[in-house]
């Protein structure tokens, strides 16, 4: 422990340092300017992405809101005086629709419209206007005794005319009716309850939505357990050898394989095994499950990896077996992470279009599917199909369908974010 002090060139060193400090000071402004520029650049990147997203959402919403409405005509109908031979009680029994039809409801409606606005307008009632009216009656049988004004959808030509497109004669008729307060756009709850149709006035999203839900259930039921189990295996037990390497490479690769190739797989394999289930959510779900599974495996592995080894050591040191360690400690702790990955994978599957085009889920299905094996479409494919429709009434419907899809995705993403924030742990 010497206290010796070296003297040597202390003065030189001080001089050199002074020079250095001056040099430093002279550059500092420039360096800080570069710093600010860089930071600004980085910030603008983030903001740019956020702006694009906002712009996308806003345009879609702006375009799509009209898609939730449809043109309807207000027709005064005196049911009491029309002599419909259906009792109010009959309406609460099955087959009421047929009874109303037999009783001449379509004609009553036609007649009432003719009376009110003339034959030309009456001809432009929607093809299923009377059905719409019938369901109003069924839900509210007391109407049968009243003289009231009902709202029913108009034909697609009329709807186009009302938008200011198509046939000029109809356009002027539409303007007349509008001036009388007989033609209006009304919120169309039925859009959320009906299935696909050729007439945009009649088209609804429920068929595709239900198809999507059924498909997602299959996807989840297959991809989640397989994905989680595979993740557990690879992360916790797999010995390091060629085989596990191959498994690992295939999983990572599958996560990046273009989705359309899964469509080709579904076409060649699943449809060969289950030819009866073309267009069915079962096949769609299986195809998407293969696509989603690697995503779940990868996120599952990350979640499992992030469980600190000290927890495993702790359990092992008490005498828990490796399987107990995983199922009692690791999996419960990794679950939020796994769920987040699953939701994100599912969200992607929900928006997937191309592979489903390959396995027949682009079929026109006029009734919502009633099970996993009945033909159906899914939301994104419906959007794609509608965007390709000739009838321009579908433009708004397409955007409305996009809103529905986006809402779904936002909810799913929100759930993932919630899970992540809620359960994010630091050990």
């Amino acid at each position, binding site marked *: 422990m010497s206290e010796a002090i070296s003297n040597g060139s202390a003065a030189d060193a001080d001089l050199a340092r002074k020079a250095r400090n001056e040099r430093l000071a002279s550059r500092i402004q420039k360096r800080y300017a570069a710093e600010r520029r860089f930071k600004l650049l980085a910030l603008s990147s983030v903001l740019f992405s956020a702006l694009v997203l906002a712009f996308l959402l806003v345009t879609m919403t702006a375009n799509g809101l009209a898609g939730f409405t449809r043109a309807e005509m207000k027709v005064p109908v005196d049911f009491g005086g029309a002599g419909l031979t259906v009792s109010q009680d009959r309406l609460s029994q099955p087959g009421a629709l047929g009874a109303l039809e037999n009783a001449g409801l379509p004609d009553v409606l036609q007649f009432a419209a003719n009376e009110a606005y003339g034959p030309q307008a009456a001809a432009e009632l929607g093809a299923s206007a009377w059905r719409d009216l019938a369901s109003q009656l069924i839900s509210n049988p007391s109407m049968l005794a009243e003289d009231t004004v009902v709202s029913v959808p108009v034909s697609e030509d009329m709807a186009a005319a009302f938008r200011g497109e198509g046939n000029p004669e109809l356009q002027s008729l539409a303007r007349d009716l509008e001036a009388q307060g007989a033609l209006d756009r009304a919120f169309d709850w039925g859009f959320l309850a009906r299935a696909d149709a050729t007439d945009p006035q009649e088209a609804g999203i429920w068929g595709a939505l239900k198809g999507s839900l059924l498909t997602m259930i299959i996807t989840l039921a297959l991809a989640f357990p397989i994905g989680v189990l595979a993740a557990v295996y690879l992360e916790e037990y797999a010995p390091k050898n060629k085989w596990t390497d191959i498994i690992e490479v295939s999983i990572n690769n599958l996560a990046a394989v273009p989705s359309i190739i899964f469509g080709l797989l579904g076409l060649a394999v699943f449809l060969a095994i289950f030819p009866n289930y073309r267009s069915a959510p079962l096949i769609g779900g299986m195809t998407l499950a293969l696509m989603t599974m690697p995503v779940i495996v990868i996120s599952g592995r990350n979640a499992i990896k992030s469980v*600190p080894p*000290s927890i495993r050591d702790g359990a092992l*040191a008490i005498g*828990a077996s490796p399987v107990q360690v995983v199922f009692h400690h690791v999996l419960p702790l990794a679950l939020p992470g796994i769920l987040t990955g699953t939701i994100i994978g599912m969200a992607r599957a929900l928006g997937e279009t191309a592979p489903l085009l390959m396995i027949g889920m682009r079929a026109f299905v006029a009734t919502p599917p009633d099970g996993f094996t009945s033909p159906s479409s899914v939301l994104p494919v419906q959007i794609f199909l509608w965007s390709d429709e000739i009838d321009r009434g579908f433009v708004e419907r397409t955007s409305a369908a996009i809103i529905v899809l986006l809402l779904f995705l936002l909810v799913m993403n929100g759930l993932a974010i919630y899970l992540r924030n809620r359960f994010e742990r630091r050990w």
Partner: protein
Amino acid sequence: MKMNNPELEGQVAGFSDAGPAKISANKVSVFYGEKKAIDEVSIDIHTKYVTAFIGPSGCGKSTFLRTLNRMNDTIPSARVDGEILLDGEDIYRSRMDVVQLRARVGMVFQKPNPFPKSIYDNIAYGPKIHGLAESKSELDGIVEQSLQRAGLWEEVKDRLSDSGTALSGGQQQRLCIARAIAVDPEVILMDEPCSALDPIATARIEELIDELRGRYAIVIVTHSMQQAARVSQRTAFFHLGNLVEYGRTSDIFTNPREERTKDYITGRYG
């Protein structure tokens, strides 16, 4: 173990004042892949004594400790040669189940690692998986007793359902000790149990170790010679994978036989 000192042999074989060895290691070598981390170490460990492993960083203290309850099995590259007898039975070669072994040889780690479960569940976990309690009330009894022995009962008895991770560092470490005690092991291994704790918590754990040694064989790894001097009755000094010297703590600290031990203790390296 390379015998640098012929006298050491007798010393390792047994202490005059102790009964038969609880754990007896014979020429144990540990390899990580190609690398030899422990070189033919032989040592006897006795019940009712605290044995401290000291030595500079990287000398193999932790490695050797973990071979004693086969926690090394979790490291794929690790390989153990030689024999380790627990009550005369070889824990590596015999048909002894590693799960049962670990129930008999408990372990406490450097960083307290309570499960992110309630305090109660932390303690009850071991008895549950080993089927040690027939009934809920029996389990309750085990939990209370373990916490009491670990000197934690008074502090946590009103909040057994709080998460174990919500405790302070020192409490967490005592919780981990209680967790190890709950399956009523015969040996407790501790790898630097206080190095993540503040001095007050450290003192509390040291006291606890002293209380516990009445029932268990305790092995503690520490990087602090002071701590070894305070808590242990036997000290083993490791260096570069060798067991350089093993003996009564008082002898090692006041009168080391080996030059290397002396240099280490007087701070010439480490």
